């Protein structure tokens, strides 16, 4: 079977070499980079615009952004037919191609996020080094932690108020530079699709903007949801531990996710959601109105074949219901959690409907291709480009986040701001 044949079902006339080449991993990739960009923008709302209520979630989303970054590479490496040559994008970049921007933008963004985290956590790192050095007896774990923190400190042990002040300024500058870079990181992903004149569904100048807006939406939604869930889990763990150790502090001291923080974050979420929906509907209306040559087949795909995926899942469950949930008065934390989850579903379906939807019709405009996501992998290719490959990608950021927070904790830490 050639690549794509296993999960493509052709209907009527499709060119012989046409298959669904860009499948689930190419849906995952903009979804993951969108989460990266969105998480970063959320954290910048505090660092750059000084929205004080977002302080707790800002640190959380910054670290999450770092955990998401290597995961953004995963779908690409799983998709490439020659992943070991992926480095060629950095070696001989052909900048007339949007994908070549990936190397530069990704590296730049990674360095900005890493640097910003360094400045935010520098005080904590130095404190940890000093505490561990002062310890009389060091276990193996302690020695390892000392090594890690010493390397991370990079010799900058100055904790004077002047140095702290410099840290704060650096964070502000990096967060400010980081916003356009994060936008670029995801905007170029939209450009990858929007500039393909050969694809009637993808080709629109609105694509980069639609992608950026829905990226910010997804990032905020993910951080809000993970933040709420993490706070609840911490309370649950403490309650469970207290059963055997009643001397541990009560859950009253452990704050729940604050309604004010959630409400404020939800406000920004709704703003970007409105923008994203406006652009997408604009695109659809224009296409129907101008009715160019490709409209006949696109209409079949949008209103018939993909009707459920587009109007029920993406616009209905993913946009309309969260809209109602967030805008109804007296927002509760539980409603916000549900709303964020549905928003994430909506953003995922948007990526699906663009990537897979764009390949649901043949370039001959005389046939269709149906996508059958491989569930059980009977070959390496079906694993990489199937359900299990997608699940691997979606679970890895949480694993990485857990690992990173062993070194850089996100709760109750004295940091530089």
């Amino acid at each position: 079977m050639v690549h794509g044949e296993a999960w493509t079902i052709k209907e009527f006339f499709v060119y012989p070499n046409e298959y669904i080449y860009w499948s689930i991993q190419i849906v995952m990739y903009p979804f993951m980079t969108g989460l990266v960009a969105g998480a970063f923008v959320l954290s910048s709302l505090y660092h750059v615009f000084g929205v004080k209520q977002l302080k707790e979630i800002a640190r959380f989303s910054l670290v999450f952004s770092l955990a998401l970054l290597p995961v953004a590479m995963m779908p690409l490496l799983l998709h490439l037919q020659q992943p070991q040559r992926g480095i060629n994008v950095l070696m001989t970049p052909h900048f007339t191609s949007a994908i070549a921007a990936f190397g530069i933008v990704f590296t730049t963004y990674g360095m900005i996020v890493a640097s910003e985290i360094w400045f935010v956590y520098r005080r904590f790192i130095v404190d940890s080094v000093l505490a561990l050095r002062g310890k009389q007896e060091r276990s193996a774990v302690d020695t390892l932690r000392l090594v890690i923190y010493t390397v991370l400190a990079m010799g900058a042990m100055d904790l004077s108020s002047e140095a702290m002040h410099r840290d704060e300024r650096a964070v502000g500058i990096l967060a400010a530079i980081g916003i356009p870079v994060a936008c670029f990181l995801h905007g170029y992903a939209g450009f990858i699709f929007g500039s393909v004149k050969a694809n009637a569904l993808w080709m629109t100048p609105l694509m980069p903007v639609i992608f950026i807006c829905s990226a910010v939406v997804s990032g905020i939604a993910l951080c809000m949801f993970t933040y709420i869930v993490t706070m609840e889990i911490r309370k649950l763990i403490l309650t469970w531990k207290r059963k055997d150790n009643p001397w541990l502090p009560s859950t009253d001291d452990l704050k729940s996710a604050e309604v004010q923080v959630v409400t404020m974050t939800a406000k920004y979420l709704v703003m970007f959601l409105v923008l994203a929906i406006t652009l997408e509907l604009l695109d659809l209306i224009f296409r129907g109105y101008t009715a160019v040559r490709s409209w006949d087949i696109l209409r079949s795909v949008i209103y018939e074949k993909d009707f459920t995926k587009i109007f029920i899942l993406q616009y209905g469950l993913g946009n309309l219901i969260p809209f109602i949930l967030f805008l109804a008065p007296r927002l509760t934390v539980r409603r916000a959690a549900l709303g964020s989850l549905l928003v994430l579903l909506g953003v995922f379906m948007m990526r699906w409907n663009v990537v897979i939807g764009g390949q649901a019709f043949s370039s001959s405009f005389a046939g269709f291709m149906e996508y059958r996501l491989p569930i059980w992998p009977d070959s390496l290719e079906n694993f990489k480009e199937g359900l299990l490959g997608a699940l691997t990608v979606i679970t890895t950021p949480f694993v990485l986040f857990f690992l990173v927070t062993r070194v850089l904790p996100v709760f109750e830490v004295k940091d530089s701001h």
Partner: protein
Amino acid sequence: MMNRREFCKKAMIVVGGIALPLAALEVFNPMRLQAEKEGPGKVRWAFLVDTQKCVGCGFCVKACKIENEIPYDANVTRTWVERYVVTRDGTTHIDSPKGARDGFTTMKIDQNKEGLLDISPADIEKAFFVPKLCNQCDNPPCVQVCPVGATYQTVDGVVLVDRNWCIGCGYCIMGCPYSVRFFHPVYHVAEKCNFCYHRISQGMKTACVDACPFGARRIGNLRDQDDPVTKIIMTQRVNVLKEEYGTKPQVFYLGFSKEVK
């Protein structure tokens, strides 16, 4: 903290400074300058397809597969033939079973998942065959979108793929409006018709041109005024596929009809 005026001044200097060396890179590309100075090269390959003469025998597809080592049973091919059958009710039926590797031997239309469609001869208003292959465009969108420079155009107009450099991202495959590209099932890199570059570079014709018994396929050199193919392209009514994409394709069709996709 500098004031706005100073910032603007410094910004202009920085931008100007960056723009200058970047511009120099393009202007002083010595090879490009040399090529432009000598004028257009001696050879520019072009292809001529006569859809009246094509009978849909599929010998071209078979020959191409063997000559260019595309696995015979794989459902991909560097070239193929499409059949168009227009019936009385105005519907156009199109098919290309296995890319016409085995020719067209039945009147039934292969509709893939929808099965075979019976068409009675009385219903046929017109029917014809259209061979397709890579157009070796003058503005190849596939080359433009390759992120690593694995696909490129030679000075004589043929677009090639470097099998040792391609990372297999598939952007070129998505970027081609004619869907001539695919992933090679053995090498796992992008693949497409290259006008049998190994044959035309030593004075032979492409495998499909040699295999066609009816003269439906011909290849020629646009820069040679005496080339019979060039003469036809210059003097007769020819058409190209999907001109609206701005790719400037170099495969010319005689007997083109509005139904052709």
